[in-house]
């Protein structure tokens, strides 16, 4: 099967710091892949390059065979890669439904001049997406009044609007309490399921990684240290030494 995303010898440096050192990675359709690594290992740089925010110094990034390495975030999003952020990037003065409406209006080539409340189809779609995350009752709440965990889910809901081929989630459970992290992740997996998107998520919590990932890629100093099924990677000596610190 052809991979959704294919990365070949990707390099990125910030001065003397090597953030990506000849990264090569294939992401097959339907997989849930977790990227792990200490701070500064290159996970977010990888996500930023794949989504067009950073341009690689060299190497190729292919999405379904199309080179996206030099494209803008907008172009990459239109081709089928969406992302959420470690710190939710929402429009805080707008309501939850309005945030999703802005995202929905990005799908077409034209934006309607009708009010969102009158464009029933779009409003329904926004509420349906919120419903998937159990947040429909908060549709008309301004984001500024919502809790951090709720914002995180809305940020992911916005990424889902385009029904992406590849969904990149940057630490989906960071800032969520230990009691709620599995509930939050269950909601995310449940919400993503109808679109059958391929998911790549950056995560520091190894319990989340071992429970939800089909495959784990461990980063260290811009390189891939290990790549495989969770049990194998998380028991890898080098991963235990440089990434997880021997803790599970």
């Amino acid at each position: 099967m052809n991979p959704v995303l294919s990365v070949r010898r990707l390099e990125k440096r910030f001065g003397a710091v090597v953030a990506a050192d000849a990264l090569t990675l294939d992401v097959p359709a339907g997989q849930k892949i977790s990227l792990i690594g200490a701070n500064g290992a290159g996970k977010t740089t990888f996500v930023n390059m794949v989504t067009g925010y950073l341009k690689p110094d060299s190497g190729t990034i292919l999405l379904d065979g199309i080179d996206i390495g030099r494209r803008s975030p907008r172009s990459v999003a239109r081709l089928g890669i969406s992302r959420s952020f470690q710190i939710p990037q929402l429009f805080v003065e707008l309501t939850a439904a309005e945030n999703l409406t802005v995202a929905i209006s990005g799908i077409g080539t034209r934006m309607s001049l009708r009010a969102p409340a009158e464009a029933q189809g779009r409003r329904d779609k926004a509420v349906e997406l919120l419903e998937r995350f159990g947040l429909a009752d908060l549709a008309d709440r301004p984001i500024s009044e919502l809790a951090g965990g709720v914002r995180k889910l809305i940020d992911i809901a916005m990424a889902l609007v385009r029904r992406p081929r590849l969904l990149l989630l940057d630490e989906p459970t960071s800032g969520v309490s230990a009691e709620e992290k599995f509930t939050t992740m269950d909601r995310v997996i449940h919400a993503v399921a109808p679109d059958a998107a391929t998911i790549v998520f950056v995560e520091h919590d190894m319990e989340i990684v071992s429970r939800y990932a089909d495959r784990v890629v461990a980063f260290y100093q811009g390189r891939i240290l290990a790549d495989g099924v969770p049990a194998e990677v998380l028991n890898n000596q080098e991963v235990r030494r440089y990434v997880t610190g021997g803790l599970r």
Partner: protein
Amino acid sequence: MKKDLHPLAMIAVIAGVTLFGRVLPTWTLSLATIAASNALIALGIVVLARTGNVSFGQGLFFAAGGYGVALIANAWGLTDAVAQVIVGAACGGLLGLVIGPLIARYSGIFFGMLTLALSMVFYGALVKSTALGGSDGFNVGRPSLFGMTFTDPREADFMLYAVSVIVTGLAGIGATFLFRSEFGLASLAVRENNLRVEYLGLSANRIISINFLIAAIFAGASGAFALMAQRHIDPQFAYWTTSGEFVFVAVLAGNQSVAAVFVASMALELVRSFSNLYLPNTWQLVLGVFLLGVILFLPRGIGSLWIRDRRKRRISATAPLTAERGAAP
């Protein structure tokens, strides 16, 4: 659910205000015409400000509209008020179409300074241009309306008042639709986080450019009104203090309500006129105190007087937040 004014009700308000001009004293007609004209250009600034960018150089489009109309009026004898407004809007819009996409990539203070710089370059060119009358400018004839000429000054003033109120009112209705629309929402989204907008597949630059174009069209039309009211044009139209006055109106109004722009413009003209009349030596001081008062007590503009209440009602009508989902940060 938020209840907005129906478009027919808005048209009725415009008709009412227009007819009200029949009973207004003549000096008030001129004042209201200037207020409506200023409101139109300030409305454009508010439209643009919703993307997070403030233009300090709308005088550029104001002057482009005014000079465009004046040149065509003198060259081809175009005196019809409505046609002049259309020509002014087209001149401003054409210039906005060229400049908008070029400066849409800048934001914040760089955007504001660039617009200011462009308007001052235009001002400098106008001052040096002898063909356009240099710093003295030149005069144009009295406007007509659909073939009717107005020799009675009161009738001429009322005609201009009526056209300015109707055009500005229609622009206000258009802006209201724009603010309520998905495009209006996307504009607010650009103001908050333009990178996120790009990640959603939307072009922040295009959204800013379209809003810039609308602001330029309004400024061009406003320039035509100013020309018709003064029957004279000079480079002062493009000077930075002229642009600053329009920004004052926009700041006074805030960016939450279209009606606020008209109220702010009228309030500013009234304060200016009365303070000039009764305190001729210190009228600028009175104007400054008035502006400070509004900024101090209504930091979100005059519009927040009624928009705040509507928002409170809307929130209290919805379900309370569920505490178990965690405390808001």
